[in-house]
């Protein structure tokens, strides 16, 4: 039960209420009154100023905070129910301000009858139930008395509680508010409300969590200050632009990051009795963004694998076709050749002899083409063994030794004596070296300096072979075409154009790489990298042919 304050009371009943005789020896106090009802502000200001106190007023939480920047009161009367920053929130904020330690906070409650609130929970010292103005004035006086004795204020219950009664509509509104509070406090999205000038007036627990700051530190702050500098511009723009329709920050263009999480912002305008504020919803989209990114990555990988598979399919079918066709073509060639050779057994006029010779030349050419085609198509049938590149190269070079000597071509070897053996198909690699040497031989025709240089080394689990010639080189425009099938710079009859494409296919099939370099006039260099341990060709899906 409430104890009414003692001391002298003057029931004058007249207009202005003078409770204390001015100059009676009470020290002047600095007082701040915060209430959104102008009448209450007037009442209290008159009341207290008459006593000689210095009184400042504020109509809402934001203004109160402004005033408190330069005014340090000893007592603050705070209206509980105020728009934007409520009385309770204001108290919490004030209690966090160092320079306001020791200030008395007195709550003026409109809803004391409907809602039992323990004001000490948010740091207030006392509470007055707002009833009639007359009673209000009286209770304020009581407070002023009690404020002299430390600890006295807290011992009061709610002053004037017995004079107020429950109102239905207030109860309903409060109940409704409680329900919304449950939602606001437990939803997974963060909610921030800001005035049209951009001051934060409400923050729900999730928003505070996302921003890594307690509610009290976020209220009354500039909205844009809460976000990192690079995003302030875009956020500010959306904020300004939002008038009647909700709008969102483009997350793709501006991937807003808050405390390490990616956050999506949506802005909702609220018009309320001439007031205009904006509610901002914060959604943690980090997992969504990450999921999207890995899906994209998986999709890219899938498409790559698909491309490889398609290519392999094509090659395989070309291979089967080529193999079959090659064989079929060789039989008719064989018959033609045999007949021509029989014709050549007899003495023939010179011209006829020449023509018959020419037919044989063409037959041999056609045979070579089908041989190359068969080799080309047999890439996926490798027989893997241990291969010493140095030895293999020597063996292959030996096959062409005779021809090379005829042309006075020198081979300079710079072998790594400790070159590791690699897992490879020796026949296929022999074909690679064979083709490279033969190409070099052709390139060296007519040159003064006729050299082929080979250098082997091992590096990072790979064997690196550098194959150079001192030929005329390869024009820049052709460099990226030389590995294409059927690309040849030779006259018809002098090359199938498959040599280097076979080289390229074999190297790739072994999981290696080949690059061609050239300086026109100085020669060409081929750099082959072959893995020591057998590797799948880049991009080939698991389960491909060995």
């Amino acid at each position, binding site marked *: 039960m409430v104890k009414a304050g003692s001391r002298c009371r003057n029931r004058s009943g007249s207009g202005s209420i003078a409770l204390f005789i001015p100059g009676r020896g009470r020290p002047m106090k600095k007082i701040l009154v915060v209430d959104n009802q102008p009448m209450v502000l007037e009442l209290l200001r008159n009341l207290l100023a008459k006593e000689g106190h210095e009184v400042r007023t504020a109509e809402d939480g934001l203004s109160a905070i402004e005033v408190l920047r330069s005014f340090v009161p000893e007592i603050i009367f705070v209206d509980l129910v105020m728009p934007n920053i409520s009385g309770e929130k204001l108290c919490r904020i004030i209690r966090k301000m160092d320079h306001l330690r020791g200030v008395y906070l007195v709550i003026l409650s409109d809803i004391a009858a409907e809602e039992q609130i323990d004001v000490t929970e948010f740091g207030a010292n006392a509470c007055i139930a707002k009833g009639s103005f007359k009673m209000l004035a009286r209770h304020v006086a009581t407070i002023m008395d009690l404020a002299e004795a430390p600890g006295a204020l807290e011992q009061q219950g709610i002053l004037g509680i017995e004079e107020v009664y429950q109102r239905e509509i207030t109860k309903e509104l409060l109940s409704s508010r409680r329900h919304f509070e449950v939602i606001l406090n437990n939803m997974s999205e963060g909610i921030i409300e800001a005035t049209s000038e951009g001051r934060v007036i409400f923050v729900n627990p999730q928003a505070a969590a996302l921003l890594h700051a307690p509610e009290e530190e976020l209220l009354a702050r500039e909205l844009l200050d809460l976000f990192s500098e690079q995003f302030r511009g875009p956020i500010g723009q959306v904020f300004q632009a939002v008038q009647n329709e909700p709008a969102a920050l483009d997350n793709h263009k501006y991937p807003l990051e808050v405390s390490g999480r990616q956050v999506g912002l949506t802005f909702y305008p609220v018009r309320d009795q001439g007031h205009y504020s904006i509610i901002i919803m914060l959604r943690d989209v980090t997992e969504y963004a990450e999921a999207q990114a890995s899906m994209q990555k998986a999709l890219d990988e899938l498409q790559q694998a698909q491309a490889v598979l398609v290519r392999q399919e094509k090659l395989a079918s070309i291979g089967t076709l080529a193999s079959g066709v090659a*064989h079929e073509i060789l039989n008719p*060639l064989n018959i033609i050749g045999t007949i021509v*050779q*029989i014709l050549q057994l007899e003495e023939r006029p010179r011209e006829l002899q020449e023509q018959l010779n020419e037919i044989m030349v063409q037959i*041999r050419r056609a045979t070579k083409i089908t041989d190359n085609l068969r*080799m080309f198509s047999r890439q996926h049938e490798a027989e893997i063994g241990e291969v010493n590149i140095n030895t293999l190269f020597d063996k292959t070079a030996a096959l062409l030794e005779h021809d090379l000597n005829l042309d006075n071509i020198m081979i300079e070897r710079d072998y790594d004596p400790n070159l590791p053996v690699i897992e490879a198909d020796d026949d296929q690699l022999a*074909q690679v070296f064979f083709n490279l040497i033969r190409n070099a031989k052709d390139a060296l025709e007519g040159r003064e300096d006729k050299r082929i240089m080979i250098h082997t080394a091992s590096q990072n689990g790979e064997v690196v072979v550098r194959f150079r010639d001192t030929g005329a080189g390869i024009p820049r425009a052709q460099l990226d075409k030389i590995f294409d099938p059927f690309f040849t710079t030779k006259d018809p009859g002098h090359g199938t154009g498959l040599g280097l494409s076979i080289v390229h296919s074999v190297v790739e099939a072994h999981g290696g790489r080949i690059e061609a370099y050239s300086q026109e006039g100085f020669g060409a260099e081929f750099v082959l990298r072959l893995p020591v341990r057998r590797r799948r060709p880049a991009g080939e899906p698991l389960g491909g042919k060995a």
Partner: protein
Amino acid sequence: MSKKKILVVDDEYSFCKSLRLFLEKSGHEVIVATNGEHALDIIKAESPDLMTLDIRMPGIDGYEVLNRAKRLDPQLFIIVITAIDLPRMEELLEHSGAHALIRKPIDLMELSRTIDKFLARGQTEESRP
């Protein structure tokens, strides 16, 4: 050069004809067969000295013909004439059990040389084309 009895086996009759023409010019007696079964019959009936054979023929498997031929007549000198690419030649020669291997399109001079070598030795021998 002595005259020998040569059995030419290939499913392409035109090729058989041409080979016969060539071999007869060298003075040999030539019999032609265009399938394996027929070839084996001829071996039984005519006992040729030498046989040319394409491994890849439709019908009876060329290898089977070869094996049965060898069993029928261990003295028979067998030259396989077939369309094969270089890298596989050695392997085929060993695998097939033939005495010599010549690639298609055939070089008639090479065939000549191979036959001469056989005649010179007078018996079967390993010969590389």
